[in-house]
């Protein structure tokens, strides 16, 4: 463990953590480049660089700039947002299962989003609907699991129940929607990155810009609070403001991420835990979780496009398979 100091600021870095972050960045860049260059029409990697700077061939600029780049960028940003959201909520609930997909937040966001889709909203209105749905479902789950305090397992079980109802509401709304709305909402409901444009990436980018500083600020106090509120207070942490800020950031990130890509399940659950294992840190860490989330989602999306070609699977099916297997693995490991 080394400490970097710059004036009044200091950061603690573990060599293993830095190495893990570097490795994830390299893998993320490599996967993104593969996703950008391969497909029905192969664009060599040098052409990608030139078309990013607006000096490529028209075909390469269309394919990379209009079709593939928005999808990859949305995937990276959404993955990072889900990873961060999962890290915050897992840390708050002190439970690896306390991720937004198990707590019903993702389902709430998708219900809000579908209401906006059915009402014919724009990308920004869909984002707003998802945010509202996410906040409302968070309040509902918390309220329903409150019985003189909240136990994390009760929170998870109530979240599963509320999520099941909300998913049913989604399907009901789909049957009531007209064909065009139903088709666009139906592609979105399993979590999909196909057909994402810059208009989907920009809201997530804005939210990340706003909330990354918040995450950085609450990161260390949250680690202290995992030892219990009293210990954290004794260490000089103002518990309530930190918790409120953390909940707000976790719920908002989940909401905007769902708005952009639909309820892609399991990224928020698996990313923080996989990152923790890779960097061998004692608890979940924000930066590593965000990186891992981005890598996971882009890699899963690439696999969903290529593995069963010409059939294109929604990325949500891929992450459900990967994440569920991972969850089974954690449950098995806990036996020892």
């Amino acid at each position, binding site marked *: 463990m080394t400490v970097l100091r710059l004036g009044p600021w200091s950061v603690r870095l573990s060599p293993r953590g830095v190495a893990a972050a570097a490795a994830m960045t390299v893998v993320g860049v490599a996967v993104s480049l593969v996703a950008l260059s391969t497909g029905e029409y192969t664009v060599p990697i040098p052409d990608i660089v030139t078309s990013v700077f607006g000096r490529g061939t028209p075909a390469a600029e269309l394919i990379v700039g209009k079709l593939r780049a928005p999808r990859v960028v949305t995937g990276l940003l959404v993955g990072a947002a889900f990873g961060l959201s999962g890290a915050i909520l897992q840390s708050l609930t002190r439970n690896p299962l306390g991720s937004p997909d198990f707590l019903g937040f993702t389902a709430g966001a998708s219900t809000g989003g579908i209401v906006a889709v059915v009402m014919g909203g724009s990308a920004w209105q869909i984002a707003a609907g998802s945010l509202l749905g996410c906040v409302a479902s968070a309040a509902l789950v918390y309220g329903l699991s409150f019985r003189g305090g909240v136990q994390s397992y009760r929170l*998870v079980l*109530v979240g599963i129940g509320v999520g*099941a*109802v909300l998913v049913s509401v989604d399907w009901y709304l789909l049957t009531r929607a007209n064909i065009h709305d139903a088709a666009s909402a139906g592609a979105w409901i*399993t979590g999909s990155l196909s057909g994402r444009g810059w208009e989907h990436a920009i809201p997530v980018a804005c939210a990340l810009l706003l909330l990354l500083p918040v995450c950085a600020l609450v990161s260390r106090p949250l680690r202290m609070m995992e030892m219990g509120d009293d210990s954290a207070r004794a260490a000089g942490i103002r518990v309530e403001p930190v918790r409120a800020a953390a909940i707000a950031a976790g719920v908002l990130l989940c909401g905007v991420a769902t708005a952009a890509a639909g309820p892609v399940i399991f990224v928020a659950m698996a990313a923080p835990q996989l990152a923790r294992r890779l960097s061998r840190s004692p608890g979940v860490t924000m930066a590593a979780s965000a990186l891992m989330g981005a890598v996971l989602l882009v890699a899963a999306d690439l696999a969903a496009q290529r593995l069963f070609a010409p059939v294109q*699977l929604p990325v949500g099916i891929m992450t459900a398979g990967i994440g*569920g*297997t991972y969850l089974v693995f954690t449950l098995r490991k806990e*036996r020892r």
Partner: protein
Amino acid sequence: MSPGGVVEAVPEQAPGKTPARRAGRSAALAAGLLAGVGALVLLVLLSIAVGSRSVPLSTVLDALTAPDGSTDHTVIRELRVPRTLLGLGVGAALGLAGALMQSLTRNPLADPGLLGVNYGAALGVTVALGLLDLSDPAVYVWFAFAGAALSAVLVYALGSAGRSGASPVRLALAGVALGMVFHAASSAILRMDTATFDRMRFWLTGSLAGPTPEIAVRLAPFLVAGVVLGLMLAGPLNALALGDDAGRSLGVGVGRTRALTAVAVTLLCGSATAAAGPLWFVGLAVPHAVRTFTGPDQRWLLPYTVMLSPVLLLGSDILGRVIAAPGEVQVGIMCAVVGAPVFILLARRRRLAAL
């Protein structure tokens, strides 16, 4: 199967109940069972009559007794009757499977959908239909049985042998996780082929709309066999509820009862899923509701569950046809809306291990 000594042993453990009061309670429960059958018959008629093309009840009776080949009569005999009968069978099967699983695992959260068994069965069906092109229900139902048995074994192995011992929460989480994996695999397989996907996607969320009379006929024997076997296990399960040792001293084969219960659960979940897709919550909500007035005695609990689960399923199905007319909301969706609140209430309990 159910030695008389065992059957009598359980009620006599309860202190402060005179034989006369017990007889009165039994009479009341029997009368309730009869009233329930009456309600079920009414619901069956309603389910045949209500839909995107509503038919008066007198026409329903005519169509059943003296068909004349008119459009109404054809709709009733070819579509509504098979659908209603399957709803009856699937409801009874899922409720009974839930009650048996709760009794076997002593886990109040046990449910064929929640523990992933139905999703395992659904994966079996999609493998048979999507990859192997087997379209005979009497053939692909065996794949459903294999999937159900496999997932039941996996979930139980993952969820019960933990460091902290068997806990309802671990079992439920293992079930939900495996269920998600199986569900993802099923949708991936179905998406490989557009025609199959179009035909089966409603089935994958749980729907009674698909089955033809032929499917109903082919699956009925498996459903009936499962229900009969399940009901016959009431006595031995009562004895086992006292603990393995007490059960053994009352003359019940512990291993044999467990194995037969597992067979019954596999039969019930597999055939119900083959018919109507993976459904949640029926097997959770109904046994808990029934237990509030029958108590833990399986000899009342199981028959009441068999009778009231179709009431829930057919009721949900009818409601789904009414609220979205002229379309319909799949019964799987309606079941989640009705059953999930029960699950939430259970999760709010301070102590989950109440069985």
